[in-house]
């Protein structure tokens, strides 16, 4: 036994320096280690046709036809140009010349046609729902015929879901593509993936087709990127402070103060797509009354929640859309702003009186509602603050919490009263997702079924002839929904990233930090 014990200890002592020597050897490479947002962990595949969730790796292994800048504008990338006919029914895409996949195959019009046709059969088919036919014009040009104008089409092609994979590789590897084999045209090549642990990417030395948003359009200055999947916030923070990771994507709120105090840490704050709101079930007996919904919405103090739960990081939300979207710019009277006095007046006008315990009563019935949230998120903390805020109006709130899968199933029962939720999306079409009457329960948690609303939704989604008309149609739809007080808007969040001193990056020009921006990153 003693000899065995010695062997175990010796093996351990040998393994320790071996592990250290690996670190020393790899230190000669320019390695960037990123602790990815815990919400992005647990990827199921890196095949853009079959997955319905993506993470930053998609932005680095694949290139997109066009890119969205931090300014909200769209810039060419794999597409050199695009031309939309006057009636909006024909689009000509012209590819950039000389783009090669990591497997040596060429990006040409045949691949582009195959890519667009496959999109129409995959999880992102809604993005190309207006496509009728695709015709190859020459080696780099395709002409697309549409069944209706779709002013949103270029936005769709900025999505991480529309990175272009290698046709040759998908045909060769079939279902294996996306797990052990991932081939795109991006600035980094897929190297390895240990599920639940780390994803390693290597520099693409042949890359010369960065978009105009990057200063460096050639190969990256970094040899290797290691994405660490660390779920526990404390561990993420401790890895960062000990130098185990260089970038803390979406730094945990709990440790923001400490990170901000540290002068060696570069804090990068970027507008996010995140919006927090409280949904009201319009089929609930009490909440079917728009006046009660209005009183509740006006009782939610956005500033207090922003300060208490998000430490002031973000902006108060007064509509259902994030601030930078044009359809967010509604008439001032349609914005939903905290106004407790008006809320109290509304309830008094409806015949509700304050009972002995401070809770509103009408016809002997106390005003009590349940408030649902997910148990493991900021939404849970928000729900606690809202409980106190609605008590000011005189509503007894009973908080109920669920795990993410359970709550989705519970929505479908339609038994919810109030629900604190959040979404991350930077297009006004999110309104259709949440209020389309064909999706009652989930994602239409408000259980909103209204013919006028659906009519306005169809106008915005499928009857807009150009970008300006689409914005106007969505603004009209948005204003109509705001007037129904189906949500109490809470905050629009920001993404705060912590970057180590040795990492040098210019101000973000893309809509996300961990993506093509890394082409311009250098390391000490």
């Amino acid at each position: 036994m003693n000899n065995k014990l010695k062997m175990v200890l010796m093996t351990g002592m040998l393994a320790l320096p071996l592990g250290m020597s690996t670190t020393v050897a790899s230190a000669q490479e320019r390695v960037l280690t990123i602790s990815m947002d815990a919400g992005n962990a647990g990827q199921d595949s890196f095949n853009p046709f079959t997955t319905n969730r993506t993470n930053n790796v998609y932005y680095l292994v694949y290139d997109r036809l066009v890119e969205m800048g931090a300014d909200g504008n769209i810039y060419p990338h794999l597409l050199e140009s695009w031309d939309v006919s006057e009636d909006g029914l024909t689009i000509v895409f012209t590819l950039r010349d000389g783009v090669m996949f990591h497997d040596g195959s060429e990006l040409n019009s045949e691949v582009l046609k195959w890519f667009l046709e496959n999109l129409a059969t995959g999880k992102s088919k809604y993005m190309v729902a207006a496509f009728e036919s695709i015709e190859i014009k020459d080696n780099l040009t395709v002409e697309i015929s549409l069944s209706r104008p779709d002013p949103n089409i270029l936005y769709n092609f900025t999505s991480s879901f529309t990175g272009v994979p290698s046709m040759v590789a998908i045909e060769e590897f079939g279902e294996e593509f996306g797990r052990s084999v991932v081939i795109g045209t991006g600035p980094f090549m897929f190297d390895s993936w240990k599920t639940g642990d780390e994803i390693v990417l290597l520099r693409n030395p042949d890359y010369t087709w960065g978009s105009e948003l990057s200063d460096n359009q050639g190969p990256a200055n970094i040899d290797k990127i290691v994405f660490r999947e660390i779920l526990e916030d404390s561990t993420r923070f401790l890895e960062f402070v000990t130098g185990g990771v260089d970038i803390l994507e979406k730094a945990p709120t709990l440790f923001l103060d400490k990170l901000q105090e540290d002068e060696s840490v570069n804090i990068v704050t970027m507008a996010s797509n995140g919006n927090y709101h409280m949904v009201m079930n319009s089929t609930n007996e009490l909440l079917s009354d728009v006046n009660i919904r209005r009183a509740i919405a006006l009782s939610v103090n956005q500033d207090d929640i922003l300060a208490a739960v998000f430490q002031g990081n973000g902006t108060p939300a007064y509509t259902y859309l994030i601030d930078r979207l044009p359809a967010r710019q509604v008439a001032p009277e349609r914005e939903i702003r905290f106004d407790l006095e008006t809320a109290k007046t509304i309830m008094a006008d409806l015949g509700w009186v304050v009972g002995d315990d401070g809770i509103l009563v009408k016809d002997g019935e106390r005003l009590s509602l349940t408030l649902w949230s997910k148990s493991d998120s900021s939404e849970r903390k928000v729900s606690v603050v809202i409980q106190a805020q609605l008590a000011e109006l005189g509503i007894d709130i009973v908080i109920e919490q669920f795990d993410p899968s359970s709550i989705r199933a519970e929505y479908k029962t339609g038994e919810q009263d109030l629900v604190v939720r959040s979404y991350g999306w930077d297009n006004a079409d999110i309104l259709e997702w949440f209020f389309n009457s064909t999706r009652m329960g989930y994602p239409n948690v408000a259980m909103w079924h209204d013919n006028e609303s659906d009519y306005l939704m169809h106008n915005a989604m499928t009857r807009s002839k150009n970008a300006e008309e689409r914005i106007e149609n969505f603004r009209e739809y948005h204003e109509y929904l705001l007037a129904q007080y189906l949500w109490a808007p809470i905050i629009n969040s920001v993404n705060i990233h912590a970057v180590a001193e040795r990492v040098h990056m210019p101000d973000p020009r893309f809509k996300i930090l961990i993506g093509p921006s890394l082409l311009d990153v250098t390391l000490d």
Partner: protein
Amino acid sequence: MWVYVLRRTLLLIPIFFAISVVIFSLIHLVPGDPIDSLLGPGSSKGDRAELLALYGLDKPLPMQYLYWLKDFITGDMGQSIIEKQPVADMIFYNLPFTMRLGLLSLAISFFLGIFLGIISAAAKNTFVDYIAMIIALLGVTVPAFWLGLILILAFSVNLGWFPVSGSGSFSHLVLPAVAVGLGGAGLVARVTRVSMLEMFNKDFVLLLYAKGLSRNVIIVKHVFRNALMPVITILGLRLGWILGGAVSIEIVFSRPGIGSMLLTALFRRDYPVVQASLIFLTMAVIIGAFITDIIYSYADPRVRDVYK
């Protein structure tokens, strides 16, 4: 002896069926299903129905169970609905990480626990005894995830001796194994102490003293060996537990493993992964107890006699 082993082995079969029914029912009765995770934006009710049919989730629950059981007992654990990987591959990918952590933490529990138990019993009601028992009490009561974070602060952040998280080398294994192992060490120490104190009161110990043996020889060669039986029982039962009991430590130290795989699958309602992992873990506990029984009966004929 062989009759006893055979009877105990046959008993595993009904236990397996009972467990499989409970696990299958529980996971399917919890609200939610994996299909929502698979549907893309803009999916229709038809898309949902198609996926339900594809994974056989549209069939009545007893029928689903029988299909699953048929595959399972022929060695097919199925395929993950979310990750599209064979469940067996996922388990065998994660198992080595869990085994390494489990075996090292078990070794820490065993050696540290026995060491504390012996010195505590040998120095009963002294300062050494109190210190050893306080350490044991802390080991039993302090949550492993909290201890893990404290160990990271002390040995990774302040001293820089070990990496904060990950699974690449042996150095990645030390802190998580200590965090898990200390809990077991506390238990082993307390049981060892009680068991040794009982032995000290036996007549044969008095006889050994009378024969002129030194105190150290009596403690190590006679008292400790006789006091070891309850400790073996505990360690045997922990054999199964260590495979699935380190979930929080796997999360804190960001290590792959059966526990974290199960947790992720549970949140996504990835039924084949949850079912196979739970059965695997439960059977590991039962087989751990089974092996302990066998060892016990081998060491103590009175146990075998019960089954005669």
